[in-house]
């Protein structure tokens, strides 16, 4: 098989993994080729608007497992291919020199056994680091069920190591990925967490959940994320809207992936990690997010009694709960108001959008509109029209906003 055809098959079968991030590592160029950039770099954007940072491929799409949602599952009759270690190294090096990519993302179907597969992955990356002297970013998948010693070996060679939980509950996993055991996945995450340091997966670990293949609620999903962030110090949980590639009685019948839902989960994930929201804050009234509004705005509308906040007095924690005010804006407000009293035009000068925030704040005790604050249903209507009038682009998880 020609290299071109292999690449086509093995990129195509890797594309459902949502992780593209290349941040979190500052690996230096040790007189070879390449280095890592702490903030990550996007090299291109695919036709689906997702960032391309790494050469994302499978080593092989052969697999002994039969996960129902997966295009590569054993029972599918598709073209199979496998790269040699040298081929993977050559493509990586040549793409990297031409600045197409930031590094390699190597995953694989399971051939023979988890250990056998892991050993091949390790061999490839070892070669890349030591024969080709490649110091760029490498993200590798740890195969559930593989020996701990192999995980430790791999961790020393890569910048990020990850394993996918895929489904938020035990029941979901049992239904759709009967060969995968959640203990195996937990064990890997544990090993990675306990070993992560400057020379072992310095960019930490991440994971992914498929959204909409099973019946779990948003609350189930966010609870799982929150739990994993706490237990395994994950850098990121990625959410991947289920794309129907197989037919199966256990799979939902949908035609388009639930992209807006995926977007809401990413927004909420952000709130958990950086905005000091808890799962209980987010779901104190319902178990699923409002599709029409972002989770923070939706939360604020349900808690109008806590608003308005006075821009010149609110604490940092209060500021970041205001819809439309992010971490950077809150920092700008806090530092600026030491030097001058903030009025509405100043907010605009600072690049802080008033579109959403104007309903929830005062500057020197005055509302933006100078009038009384309109009532809840009017705000709700206005915000929804706004959000949907400029046809929401699906949010690309920015690599620029610290991983």
């Amino acid at each position, binding site marked *: 098989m020609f290299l071109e055809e292999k690449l086509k098959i093995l990129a195509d079968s890797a594309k459902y993994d949502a992780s593209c991030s290349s941040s979190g590592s500052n690996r230096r160029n040790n007189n070879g080729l390449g280095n890592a950039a702490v903030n990550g770099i*996007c090299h291109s954007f*695919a*036709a*689906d*608007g997702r960032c391309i940072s790494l050469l994302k491929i499978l080593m092989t799409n052969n697999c002994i497992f039969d996960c129902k949602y997966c295009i590569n599952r054993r029972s599918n009759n598709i073209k199979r291919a496998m790269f040699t270690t040298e081929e993977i190294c050559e493509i990586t090096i040549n793409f990297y020199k031409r*600045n*197409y990519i930031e590094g390699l993302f190597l995953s694989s179907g399971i051939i023979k056994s988890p250990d056998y597969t892991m050993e091949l992955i390790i061999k490839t990356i070892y070669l890349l680091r030591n024969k080709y002297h490649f110091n760029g970013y490498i993200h590798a998948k740890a195969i559930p069920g593989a020996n701990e010693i192999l995980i430790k070996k791999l961790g020393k060679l890569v910048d990020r190591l990850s394993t996918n939980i895929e489904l938020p509950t035990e029941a979901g996993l049992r239904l759709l990925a009967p060969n995968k055991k959640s203990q195996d996945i937990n064990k890997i995450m544990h090993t990675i967490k306990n070993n992560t340091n400057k020379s072992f997966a310095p960019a930490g670990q991440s994971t992914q959940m498929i959204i909409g293949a099973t019946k779990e609620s948003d609350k189930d999903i966010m609870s799982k994320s929150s739990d994993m962030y706490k237990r395994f110090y994950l850098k990121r949980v990625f959410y991947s809207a289920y794309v129907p590639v197989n037919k199966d009685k256990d799979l939902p019948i949908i035609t388009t992936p639930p992209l807006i839902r995926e977007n809401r989960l990413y927004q909420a994930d952000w709130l958990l990690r950086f905005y000091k929201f808890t799962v209980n804050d987010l779901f104190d009234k319902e178990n699923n997010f409002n599709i029409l509004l972002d989770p923070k705005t939706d939360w604020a509308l349900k808690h109008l009694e806590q608003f308005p906040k006075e821009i010149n007095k609110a604490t940092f924690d209060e500021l970041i709960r205001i819809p439309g005010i992010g971490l950077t804006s809150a920092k700008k407000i806090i530092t*600026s108001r030491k030097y001058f009293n903030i009025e509405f035009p*100043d907010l605009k*000068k600072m690049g802080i959008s008033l579109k959403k925030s104007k309903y929830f704040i005062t500057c020197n005790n005055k509302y933006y509109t100078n009038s009384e604050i309109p009532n809840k249903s009017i705000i709700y209507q206005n915000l929804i029209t706004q959000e949907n009038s400029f046809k929401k682009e699906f949010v690309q998880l920015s690599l620029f906003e610290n991983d």
Partner: protein
Amino acid sequence: MTNYVIIYDGTFVNLLSTIKYLIEEKIRPAKIVVEGKYNVSLFEEILKPNIFNDPNYIAKLENLSSKKVIKIITFVFLSNDKNKELILYYFILNTLKYKKNIIYYRNLLCVNQALKISKHVANENHKFKGFTRFQMVNNKFLFAKIKPDNYILELLSQHFSKRLKNELWIIKDEKHNILSIYDKKNFYIVNAKDLQLLELKNIEKNEKWEKLWKTFFNSIAIKERENRRCQMSFMPKKYWSNIIEMEGNDEKNN
């Protein structure tokens, strides 16, 4: 007080020295422009200060303020903003007063503008760390063409001299017609007019790796999620001419 149009020679050190002179002599500039690049109108009064460049002024400013302030000043200078010189004059004038805290006075127009412009330059530099595409020439050196709005070539060269440390490379900024040439030790920025590169005439189009890259690029997109608008907003069309995987994508978008 007369409002003068001030002339300087286009270099950073000369601009800073000129600004220092204006502040000391309490001269309010109406404009600060590069010699030979500005058509004077009848009603304007020109002033070309007779000064010596003071290469230490930047260090003095840094002592007075901070590294961060100097970075902002430098980045504003690298921008293509038409008023950058005047903005820098007011920014430095206020830096003398507010020192390192200058960056928090976003209610001052010059501070607000300087921060915005410097961020814009930093962003463009960051984008080109990803969007620059090299081609292999005669199996000897790498060559890339870029068309950035701002003068980011030097910043970008710093990045690639670490990343592609053991390669020979040349980057051409087609917009400002300058080249950066790297010899595995240092990079040199030269005027493209001063250098004829014969080897660039026979760059192999669509070589093996370029073709493979396009294959990868097309395979990695999920059809069910296609979103060309999103793609375009992250990777603006104005950069496409040098991004090889976008060749022929124009039609698909319409």
